[in-house]
């Protein structure tokens, strides 16, 4: 794994005590080749893509097209036109919530662990269009309750669920859910922000209708994301952002939209970001999901085994680390977890997230004030995990 660590500038900075970055569920680090690709754009061909006909513009167009192909390959999409570049998962889901045809009484199904980005847009869509929002509650241990889903899915128009929860790292049985949903005529949207960096998403195999993901969690730059959608479905959607680059031509009276994906990519895009994102997907594929998952399991198992013996610690989600991807989320009753996170930084330079992780609804439902989340990725090491665990054990003595 050390050969990968050398690709990440932060992990090779000249620090007396190197920082331990355990906040990958929020944002991953960026490898040098992603940064170089973005920098090359700005230094060698900083031009508009798809507009001008000079060589710089052509090169930019070519690089953006390549990036789109990389992403399509990453998702095993049959057509690159099914890949729409957006700013992040949030924008992708908002686009769908705005554009999908919803009538009064239509039902939208989500899980009880949705990130606000896959909850709020649907709540607002329901308020505006009279649709209804239902929740599929998880089992006690945090795993998906397929039986409960089966009970609720009849009559649902849209099933929009987080593929891997940023709360506890649990993945839903996406293939089964999609199959059941389709049997009942429902469209399925997967929030893949947390899954795309850690497991293979084969859109054809899953037969999923839409997938939303973010670049910044999978080694890509911030401000990048992807909305995948089946071509015929995307073609039927109306974009909510229109303007330059979305139209074939206009007159004073009318316009003719371009086909997907261009009709959804209004205005000048973040070309450097898109190119960086394409490079990031290639890097992840180079590392390989088997390697990524093996490392995450090793680290999560170590952390879980070391920390579960501390009486004050309550794990969020299943006890089995194999079910929690690279996430170890915990709380200590009566303790402000922000303080734990701050102290971990102050005492051991370990960076973790604390708070409600944009899943306020889950915390409110259970009366838990906040939690601290350790999220690892393939470039983290057992030594780093040990440093984190040792620091936490010491900190826990205060409570």
């Amino acid at each position, binding site marked *: 794994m050390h050969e990968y660590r050398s690709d990440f500038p932060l992990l090779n900075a000249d620090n007396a005590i190197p920082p331990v970055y355990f906040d990958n569920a929020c944002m991953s680090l960026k490898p040098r080749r992603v940064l170089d690709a973005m920098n090359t754009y700005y230094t060698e061909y900083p031009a508009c893509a798809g507009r001008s006909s000079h060589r710089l513009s052509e090169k930019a167009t070519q690089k953006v097209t390549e990036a789109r192909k990389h992403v399509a390959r990453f998702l095993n999409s049959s057509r690159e036109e099914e890949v729409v570049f957006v700013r992040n998962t949030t924008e992708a889901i908002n686009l769908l919530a705005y554009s999908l045809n919803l009538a009064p009484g239509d039902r939208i199904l989500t899980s009880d662990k949705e990130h606000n980005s896959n909850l709020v847009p649907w709540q607002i869509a329901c308020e505006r269009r009279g649709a209804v929002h239902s929740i599929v509650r998880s089992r006690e241990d945090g795993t998906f309750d397929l039986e409960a889903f089966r009970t609720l899915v009849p009559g649902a128009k849209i099933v929009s669920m987080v593929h891997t929860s940023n709360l506890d790292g649990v993945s839903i049985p996406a293939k089964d859910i999609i199959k059941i949903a389709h049997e009942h005529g429902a469209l399925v949207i997967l929030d893949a922000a947390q899954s795309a960096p850690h497991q293979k998403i084969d859109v054809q195999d899953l037969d999923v209708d839409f997938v939303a993901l973010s670049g910044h969690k999978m080694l890509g730059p911030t401000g990048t994301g992807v909305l995948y959608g089946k071509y015929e479905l995307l073609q039927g959607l109306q974009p909510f952002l229109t303007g330059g680059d979305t139209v074939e031509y206009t007159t004073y009276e009318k316009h003719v939209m371009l086909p997907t994906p261009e009709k959804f990519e209004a205005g000048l895009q973040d070309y450097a970001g898109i190119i960086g994102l394409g490079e990031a997907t290639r890097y992840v594929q180079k590392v390989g999901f088997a390697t990524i998952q093996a490392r995450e399991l090793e680290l999560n198992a170590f952390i879980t085994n070391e920390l579960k013996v501390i009486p004050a610690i309550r794990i969020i989600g299943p006890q089995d680390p194999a079910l929690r991807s690279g996430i170890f989320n915990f709380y200590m009753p009566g303790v*402000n977890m*922000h*303080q734990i996170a*701050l*102290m971990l*930084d*102050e*005492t051991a330079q370990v960076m973790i997230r604390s708070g409600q992780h944009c899943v306020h609804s889950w915390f409110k439902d259970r009366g838990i004030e906040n939690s601290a989340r350790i999220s690892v990725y393939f470039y983290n090491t057992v030594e780093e995990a040990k440093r984190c665990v040792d620091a936490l054990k*010491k*900190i826990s*003595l*205060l*409570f």
Partner: protein
Amino acid sequence: MLCIIALVVFAILGIFSATHRELAWEALDCVTRRVTLRPCTSGFKEKVKSKVLAVLLNRSVFAARVFNRHFELVSWVFIILIILSTVYVVKGAYNFYFYASCNGLNQSGFCAFDPSGEHNKVTELSSTCGIVPKEESNLTLEGVEVSLFPSIPGTSDDTVVFIGCYDCEFTRKAYPSIQKLVKKHSSRYVFAHFPAKEHTKFLSEIGHCVYKEYGDRFWAFNDRLFTGDRAYVHDRNALDALLTEFGFDIGTISTCTEKPETKREVEQQLVELKKTNLYGTPTVFVNGTAFVGPKPYRVYSWEFTKWW
């Protein structure tokens, strides 16, 4: 409350450190929110607490645990201590400005503004001079016959009684301020020589005789004794030369000093001075208020100008 204290502390530290400057700004934001009854959103309290705990945890788990569990109490104790310290500092600064001593008028004891205690130093009287305890509160002009001493009438209602010793370095230090004070406020001025140092006793007789024989010409001579070479008070020949310089007849002065009557009068003066309970020189009475030690001019002057 932590934010208020943190604001003060980090604002001071922020003068020297950029890191503390950022914390000062955060503390200010927190204070602003709290005084407008809004919650502090910066997590400032948690940050400060965490920083302190991190340091303590590396040194003593027990101390960190106590600090963590009793953070509010520790904060309040710290706040109270800071408030008390601030009060003492302000009081000390006030006392220093108006009385040249952090601890009050004529009080010795450490003062950060005057570490050497210069403004309260006196030449202490020998044990033969009196058995009254050295307490500033005992100093008084009550029952003291000041008319026995050389004086200059003033045009105001104020009176300055300056008791000093010609050979006392502290008296000599206070002398210019007293002269400035008397001149500026046109106050009545009484000078009494007290021989704090035994060997200067003869100067009491000489001064008394110069005043008796030559009247107001005494004052210029008196001024020279305080401001001129100290040899005048140590060396009789030098003193005689000074007397001659001022046109005083040495024979007349000598005859005067040897008279039993002169000795009785000088002894009476000493008896009167002992009634003041002075314990060192210089001791200055400004309108009856006693000042012991060479104070800055402003301290004496304030006695004339204060409105209470």
